[in-house]
């Protein structure tokens, strides 16, 4: 299992952002759904080894990120796109991606090709020499995805990756996700349930720091059938139904 977490919690002062989450997953695309404040970003930051859990067990790529050596090894094989992507406006797209390839300690001789490949995969080949400050929001997001995948990560964490992408780019991106999921564990946190339906083989729904559903997108869609839950599509109705059930019985789990 690339991700193996058990009863993980995370508190920020008196606020419990993640409350006893357990999850195992291997290669494939994993969707993480949930309303604002559900704890998705906190969970992803723990998986990105940025913050340690307050309690519980966390193993990533077969290693315990609590120790610096294993954590460094995990980070070498990790790709991460945060929800709020910062950038250096004076860098070009190629420099930005190269910079992160080097921070991930890729062998220098492999960096130029890896940078070119990553940029092509997010369809920014024509803008490789453009300064980041000149890019649109969607293009910046793609540059962020490029830096996340440049090291061909075994664990790829994407927080709202399709925010700002136009429909055509979102479809291309879903194809990229499916491709990446062939050999890596890709965890995608998103509000957009159609992304989950199109790209994810597995999905978890978080609410109030807990996973209230874990299954396939079809199973999630099935939860909405005959419930009269709000939503335009089966997945949305399933999402609404699970959330409504979780809110009415806070201790319920999938």
């Amino acid at each position, binding site marked *: 299992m690339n991700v193996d977490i058990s009863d993980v919690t995370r508190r920020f002062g008196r606020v419990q952002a993640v409350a006893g989450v357990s999850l195992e997953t291997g290669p*494939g695309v994993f969707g993480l759904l949930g309303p604002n404040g559900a704890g998705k970003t906190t969970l992803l930051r723990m998986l990105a080894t*940025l913050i340690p859990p307050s309690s519980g067990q966390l193993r990533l790529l077969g290693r315990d990120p609590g120790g610096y050596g294993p954590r460094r090894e995990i*980070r070498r094989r990790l790709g*991460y796109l945060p929800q709020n992507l910062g950038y*250096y406006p004076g860098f070009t797209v190629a420099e930005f991606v190269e910079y992160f390839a*080097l921070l*991930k300690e890729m*062998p220098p001789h492999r960096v130029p090709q890896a940078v070119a490949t990553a940029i092509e995969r997010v369809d920014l080949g024509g803008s490789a020499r453009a300064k980041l400050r000149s890019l649109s929001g969607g293009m910046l997001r793609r540059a962020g995805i490029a830096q996340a995948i440049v090291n061909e*990560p075994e664990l790829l964490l994407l927080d709202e990756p399709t925010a700002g992408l136009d429909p055509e780019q979102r479809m291309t991106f879903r194809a990229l996700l499916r491709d990446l999921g062939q050999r890596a564990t890709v965890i995608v946190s998103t509000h957009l349930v159609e992304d989950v339906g199109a790209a994810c083989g597995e999905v978890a729904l978080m609410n109030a720091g807990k996973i209230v559903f874990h299954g396939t997108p079809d199973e999630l869609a099935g939860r909405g059938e005959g419930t009269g839950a709000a939503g335009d599509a089966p997945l949305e109705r399933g999402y609404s139904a699970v959330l409504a059930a979780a809110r009415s019985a806070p201790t319920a789990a999938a």
Partner: protein
Amino acid sequence: MAATTSAPAQHRPPRVSSAVPRGAARLLSVELRRNAMPWILPLIAALFWFDSYRPSTGTAPLYSLRTFWNMGQGHTIIDFGPFVAGVAAWMGSRDGRRGMADLVTATSRPHWAAQLTTWAATAIWAVAAYLVFVGIMFAMYARQGVGGAPPWWWVAVGAMAVAAFSAAGFAIGAYWPTRFAAPVAAFGGFLAMVTSSQTGFSHVNGWAQILPTNSNGNFGNPLTDAGIFYPWMPDVPIVRIMFLAGLAVAALGLTGLPARAGGRGLRRAAALIAIAGVALAGTAVGLTTTARLGPHGIVIPALHDAASDKAVTYTPSCDRAAGLPVCLNPAYRRWLPDVRDALAPLLVELSGLPGAPVRASQVAADNASSPPAITFGGHPPALRMSLGQLNLPGQCGFCRGPVASTQFADEMRLLTAHAFVGAGAGVGSPVQQAVQAVLLNAAGVPFAAQPRAIAAAENLPKPAPGTTGPVYAAARRLDALPVAARHAWLVAHLAAVRAGGLTLADLP
């Protein structure tokens, strides 16, 4: 919980150990390309031109004088320091300001290593610019025929100061990642330099020797011949480099202390580095308290190398005045005609008198050579000129205006006659003053002009002003004698004049 697939990952981890140094070099290359420092360099260049270079060109063309202002008093550092601190703070705060901290921290290279790379690029730009600017300034000095050797030790102090400013500014930015970090760091740097300057002016020794703007004891009169007759003394530059390096190391060590900087071992190393930096800076300050004034500058016993005291060998530049060789250090070659012309009329008058010099040679100006600047000594007697103590013809820099050749000639003749009659460091006896006046009058400085020449001469005790007293009355009597009779009287009585055994009534 089930995984979607069970296919094993194909990714092979890179071989890291050999790749890291090359990777760090590539990272540095990216940082160098996208560093903010080059944007500020035109402003620093303009400031450097107007504050460091231009004022220096008003001084005599000797490195020791040209660099008094910009190296000794640290104006090159003042021009660079605050801006470098500000830009370094901007770079140090970059990840925080740009919301990049998470992204950078989630990579395998320790965050501290990434930060040090950013700092290194910033410092490389700043130090390289400092060295280039100083190099251009020295090249222009060389084209202008400036004499002596450049003060390379002081250039090293400046370069280290720039690096220290960049490290301090970077640490401020790293700990306070806001847009205000840069102006605050720049203003702090400016305040530090103002404080350093004010304290340096008023403290001639002790701990204040550590301040990079303190020229006391190492530059200026009477050390004008540093880099000409003797090497630039490295003792104080070495402790200043130690001090500034200590500050830089401590600041950089501090940036490695936060939890996100790296592993526990790395942070422990950063703490040790910070402590080592503080210890180095403290040791440097301690060493300055042992400093004492030596003949060629400030000596710090624990660091002093006797080789620093060895005179610089040179082949003198010579000419002849009144048939006698007049020799100067080649750094002073441009003033040889002025010296020759100044001395010639007086040497004619002295010819044949007891103790008349057989040659005139320049000697070093240093802390051991107190005024007067011209003395006689040796067997056979030689006229020894410490030109470094005099305002030479041309641009002076710290005078009211350019020094005229006639003014220089009058001073040379006055000091030579003063020394010849044995007046020493005082005003001389009335008879010595009278004989001095006669010799000067014969050498082209009329009685009427002598009070003004005496008043203008630096480091020479001033007798009663005017030419109407008994001294000048006696001088006029002696001067009224035929040349041969006056010469004969001087031959007969000069030893007594020098011994102070005559009164004005004894003069014919």
